[in-house]
């Protein structure tokens, strides 16, 4: 009985249903575009012209839509990876490092076994990459569960270690001929097929959507998923209910790391066909924004990832046509995170309006 009381109380205090979540996310988006609009005015340009150019750059033609989707694929992976850990009450700031480890592991395996037929080599490479990410994420889970070390700090530090370690490997042992620090191109069998010719979009788009849905089903429909959510909602109650906290914590971080790794794998085996030093423009950190905005809801995650991908894709046109630095989209994205991180802003503002 006690357990149920706690649950109902939580529902009463926090209007945490899907409907109001969606509205909050929308308000955050609109506020961010408005505030960024003020910045654009300050630098002496027209926000309307800028946003029109941004939209055209993101959705104006088949190739720009393909570009938008291509840029949203890694964000779907990192977004759902972070959201998954959040459901288990853990903040995985280490998706960035996990995706580097995963990407390099998959590429190295593909390069080492070039003679395997494609239909075996590609899945094996993907799995090996995921395993790399799982180990990298699992270490943070292990340290959290066994030693009580804050997972935020551990994953943050491990990001740098992963980026530097992979950088060492592609500058040294696995470096291809030439000036650029990158590996050789993977065998065709290990590369994801292109979805639209002459674009960078590959079938990883379907893989990403599939993974997002599978994660949702795993959390909602399986007993492991239930245990992870139980620990996330109230770990002491979950422990009292017989759930093994240590095991669940490690499992949560490992799976989250494995999913994050897919972001790196899809970029390496899909978009580029090789591992390139420092290839990620902080997909892992943007994934935190996607997770917070999408609330772990599959539809919300996919839409948010596409929105962020659209901003990245459209930024070049905004730069060319409206004369605004492409970095302005980072301002918008940063603002979205700040607005969504503080939902109390709206509650307090709304309460203030009701009073007056």
């Amino acid at each position, binding site marked *: 009985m006690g357990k149920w009381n706690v649950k109902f109380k939580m529902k009463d205090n926090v209007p945490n249903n899907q409907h109001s979540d969606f509205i909050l996310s929308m308000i955050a988006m609109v506020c961010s575009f408005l505030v960024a609009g003020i*910045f654009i005015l*300050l*630098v*002496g340009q027209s926000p309307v012209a800028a946003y029109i150019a941004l939209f055209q750059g993101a959705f104006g033609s088949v190739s720009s839509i393909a570009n938008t989707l291509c840029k949203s694929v890694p964000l779907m992976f990192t977004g759902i990876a972070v959201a998954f850990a959040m459901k288990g009450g853990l*903040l995985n*700031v280490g998706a960035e490092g996990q995706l580097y480890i995963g990407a390099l592991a998959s590429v190295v395996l593909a390069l080492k076994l070039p003679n395997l037929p494609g239909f075996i080599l590609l899945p094996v490479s993907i799995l090996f990459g995921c395993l790399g990410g799982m180990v990298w994420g699992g270490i943070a889970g292990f*340290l959290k569960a066994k*030693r*009580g*070390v*804050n997972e*935020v*700090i*551990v994953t*943050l*530090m*491990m990001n*740098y*270690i992963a980026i*530097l*370690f992979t*950088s*060492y490997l592609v*500058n*040294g042992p696995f470096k291809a001929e030439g000036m650029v620090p990158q590996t050789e191109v993977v065998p065709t069998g290990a590369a994801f097929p292109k979805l639209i010719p002459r674009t960078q979009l590959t079938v990883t788009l379907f893989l990403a959507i599939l993974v997002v849905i599978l994660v949702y089903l795993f959390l909602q429909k399986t007993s492991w998923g239930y245990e992870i959510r139980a620990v996330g909602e109230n770990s002491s109650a979950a422990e009292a209910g017989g759930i093994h906290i240590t095991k669940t914590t490690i499992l949560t971080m490992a799976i989250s790391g494995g999913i994050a790794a897919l972001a790196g794998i899809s970029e390496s085996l899909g978009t580029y066909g090789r591992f390139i030093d420092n290839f990620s423009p*902080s997909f892992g*950190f*943007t994934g*935190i*924004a996607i997770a*917070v905005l999408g609330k772990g809801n599959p539809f919300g995650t996919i839409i948010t990832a596409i929105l962020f991908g659209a901003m990245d894709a459209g930024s070049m046109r905004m730069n060319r046509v409206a004369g*605004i*630095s492409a*970095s*302005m*989209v*980072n*301002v*918008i*994205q*940063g*603002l*979205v*995170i*700040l607005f*969504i*991180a*503080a939902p*109390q*802003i709206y509650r*307090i503002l709304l309460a203030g309006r009701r009073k007056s």
Partner: protein
Amino acid sequence: MEQLSSILTGDFILLTLRLAIPIILAAIGETFCERSGVMNLGIEGMMLIGALSGVLGSFFSGEPWVGVVFAIIVGAGIGFIYALLCVRYKADQVVCGIGLNMLSLGFTTAMVHAVWNRDGMSGTVAQVENVSIPILKNIPLLGRLFEKQSPFLYLTLIIVAASWYFMYKTKIGLRLRAIGDHPQAAESVGINVTRYRYASVILCGILASIAGAYLSIVQNNLFVQNMVAGRGFMAIAANIFGGWNPVGSFLASLVFAFAQALRLNLADLNIPDQFIQMLPYGLTLIVLVGVAKKAKGPEALGKI
């Protein structure tokens, strides 16, 4: 042996000190912030904004110290906004910090584009000059510390000493430490926890901003895109490595700066560069794992 002797020169020690300055300032800022219970992962972004503010102030006035003052004002402003979000609106501190970093990177790059109409780099501006201190510079051996050094070196050392004194020898410092561990208890004896938190976060913003300005208008004479390059995260690491103590943060920053100086000086060392760069993060992880149960930092960190 030859390599060892090249490390132990005065030049190398001075280089280490110079490289440590921005990390020390930011790490002490982080120490104040975390002692009040607010985790500031946005310090990297605060430094970046400070770096740009310094250059802007120097650019528009022609006077580098105006740049420093402008950076301090802007830093206080960013600190205030961050405190507003994390303390008043109880935002998730980790998410907020990451948002601030993304915002700052985009904003500074866009501003450089708007002011100088080019990508990646600002124009050159007036730089804070080095100073020599008469008399003191004639002391044998130690004299070099006082000859043609940045005034920020002395400023930083004063800040280290003052922060330590403030945190461990004054009543306000004692209260600050109490707030980080037991905010409710502090509240119940009449301490205004919110006010302390605002002050700490604003102080952190100011120190981070000075650290950024040091990079842009003291060490250099221009702003370069993403010029903080992870020093903010290094400062967070130094704060943990130093045990949430200003003097500890100072010593940890020196260790990290020593690693940086090694990279600059010993290109022919047999250790790959990336492994030396990893040192701060690896050391911090080891400390965290090794003493996690003993030194956890402020108990109520991140819970507002």
